């Protein structure tokens, strides 16, 4: 009999173990809840946290020893493992945040936890995808899980509305993505990133340039939707507002990271083609995204909408880094490392900020208007201080991780010669300071409204504290993480 596989399955299992473990964990959770009718969210949470810590450690070990390898439509390099680390940390914090929410709102905790786990498996498959099919399926697994999680707040119309909106627009974006992939397949006859990367259109007479340009346009629309870049961002505020807050945190941090991973892989694989006007397109996209995101955020009075627009603006800053990384068709590891660093920084501070919003509403009521934050410094000093740090970090004030991230990102852009874009980005940061300070002023300089907040539950406290600690520690000593981010992008494979 002929040999069907040339795959070293042991090696593949070893490399892909984090994903396999997470998927298995999710399925066994579902089985558990089928056999034991009583919901035990605390036991589930404990087991999950331990398991995720183990997987996190294993991924870190893999990051240290991995030799870039591409097999069975999956690829394993430091870039993918470092993004895995980001989404695993996100998962850890989100699970801590949603401990109260799963037991309070009448949803079975095992289902919610399993969906989070499956979404993260989808994200990791995006990071490890060596083929557009794998990337697309990963995006679908991730998106489908987040649509469902968005609608999981029982009996609240806003949640259903957000889920429906997200589902319809998201499916539409997926169609664009799929159309782009189909056109790319029409040009190369293959869906693998390697074939895209070795593509050359130097002496093209058969119209492949036109096809490929269209394909890239469709891919950018599809991915632009997933990262919420202007003008494809309109779903973000409504969905972020309607979704349960832990899910919002998960979408803002994890989903955006994974979508950026897909964007980076595809853009870098095709970046060497001079026929496609990458730089102008990405330049305009990033300029629009940060400017409109910041300007609209100025007028928001709802904290989740404010954070949604701020996350749109952050996608714009990240796109500055992507544009710079593409310049001269050379992979500059400092610039790309800056993007990875910023993804990590952005995830942490966003998770922290949403974590405080979760903590504010942890008795079940909706405490999401800016006015609800009045005098929080007297009602709960720790939460007020934590939110202040996260907002300062988002604005890019020194001694926080946000400043370090912006510094590396903009330094890379200057190095690539994008002075105009960098000036625009810095101006945008200055604008953003205004709306980030609005809640801070409310918390510290206005009389308190409402009762004193009761003590927080331990998981919530742990989540907020974890974010706070990393934001401050890595803000003061960012060089190790930046070194790691640079190492991650040195040997990219396709």
């Amino acid at each position, binding site marked *: 009999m002929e040999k069907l596989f040339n795959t070293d399955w042991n090696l593949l299992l070893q490399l892909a173990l984090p994903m396999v473990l997470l998927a298995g964990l999710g399925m066994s959770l579902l089985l558990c809840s089928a056999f034991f009718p009583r919901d035990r969210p605390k036991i589930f949470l404990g087991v999950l946290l331990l398991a995720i810590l183990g997987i996190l450690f294993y991924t870190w070990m893999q990051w240290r020893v991995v030799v870039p390898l591409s097999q069975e439509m999956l690829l394993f390099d430091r870039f993918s493992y470092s993004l895995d680390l980001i989404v695993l940390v996100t998962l850890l914090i989100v699970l801590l945040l949603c401990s109260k929410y799963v037991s309070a709102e009448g949803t079975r905790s095992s289902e919610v936890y399993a969906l989070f786990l*499956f979404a993260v498996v989808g994200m990791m498959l995006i990071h490890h995808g060596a083929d557009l099919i794998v990337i697309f399926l990963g995006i679908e697994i991730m998106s489908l899980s987040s649509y469902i999680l968005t609608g999981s707040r029982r009996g609240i119309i806003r949640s259903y509305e957000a889920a429906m909106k997200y589902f319809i627009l998201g499916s539409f974006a997926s169609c664009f993505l799929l159309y782009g992939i189909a056109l790319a397949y029409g040009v190369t006859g293959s869906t693998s990133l390697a074939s895209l990367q070795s593509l050359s259109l130097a002496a093209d007479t058969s119209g492949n340039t036109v096809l490929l340009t269209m394909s890239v346009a469709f891919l950018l629309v599809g991915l632009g939707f997933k990262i919420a870049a202007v003008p494809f961002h309109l779903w973000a505020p409504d969905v972020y507002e309607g979704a349960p807050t832990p899910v919002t945190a998960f979408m803002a941090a994890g989903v955006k990271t994974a979508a950026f991973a897909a964007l980076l892989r595809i853009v870098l694989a095709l970046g060497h083609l001079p026929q496609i006007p990458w730089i102008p397109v990405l330049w305009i996209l990033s300029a629009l995204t940060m400017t409109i995101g910041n300007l609209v955020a100025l007028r928001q009075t709802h904290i989740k909408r404010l954070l949604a627009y701020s996350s749109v603006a952050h996608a714009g800053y990240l796109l500055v880094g992507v544009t710079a990384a593409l310049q001269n068709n050379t992979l500059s590891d400092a610039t790309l490392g800056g993007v990875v660093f910023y993804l990590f920084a952005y995830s942490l501070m966003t998770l922290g900020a949403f974590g405080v919003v979760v903590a504010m509403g942890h008795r079940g009521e909706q405490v999401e208007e800016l006015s609800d934050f009045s005098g929080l410094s007297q009602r709960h000093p720790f939460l007020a201080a934590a939110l202040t740090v996260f907002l300062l970090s988002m604005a890019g004030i020194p001694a926080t991780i946000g400043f370090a991230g912006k510094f590396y990102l903009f330094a890379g852009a200057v190095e690539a010669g994008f002075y105009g874009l960098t000036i625009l980005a810095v101006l945008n940061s200055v604008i953003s300071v205004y709306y980030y300070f609005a809640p801070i002023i409310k918390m510290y300089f206005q009389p308190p409204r409402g009762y004193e907040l009761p003590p927080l539950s331990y998981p919530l406290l742990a989540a907020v504290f974890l974010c706070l600690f990393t934001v401050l520690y890595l803000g003061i000593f960012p060089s190790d993480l930046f070194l790691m981010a640079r190492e991650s992008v040195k040997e990219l494979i396709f």
Partner: protein
Amino acid sequence: MELILFYLFAGVVVSSALLVVFFRNPLSSALALVAALFGVAALFVLLHAYFLAAIQVLVYAGAVMVLFIFIIMMMNLDLTTLRKIHYSFTGIVGALFGSYLAAILILRLGYFSEAARATPEDYGSIASIGKLLFTDYQVPFEMTSLLLLVAIIGAVMLAKKEAKHAARQAP
């Protein structure tokens, strides 16, 4: 023999497609569409595209049609309003594009040659597709199963009855 079968099934497809348009009752139209899709599947079999035929029956005649019929039943259409014939803008545009498509198809019919059918013997057969799915495309195949699992969980989770939750929360 093959020619007779071809004309038989082609006749089924065309006549049931016409019935889809001319039936007044949407449910009858949907059932006529099922017949048309089965006819197309039979045509695929005549072309030795067994996999496509099976998929045609399973996906279109099976899943998609069930969805259609469900929706028609749920909308509970009023048949008396449907009996009136409307000459709407969309109808005119639809007729224009329909006749355009028909013209292209009829004019182009002569251009098809035997050369276009020169594919390997096992091209698109169930065996070769199965082999590809479980070797080269194994990872995407497994990912699809995970995707379906997520969809099932979501359907169950979102469609569960609210009352059950109220009951569980009460004590």
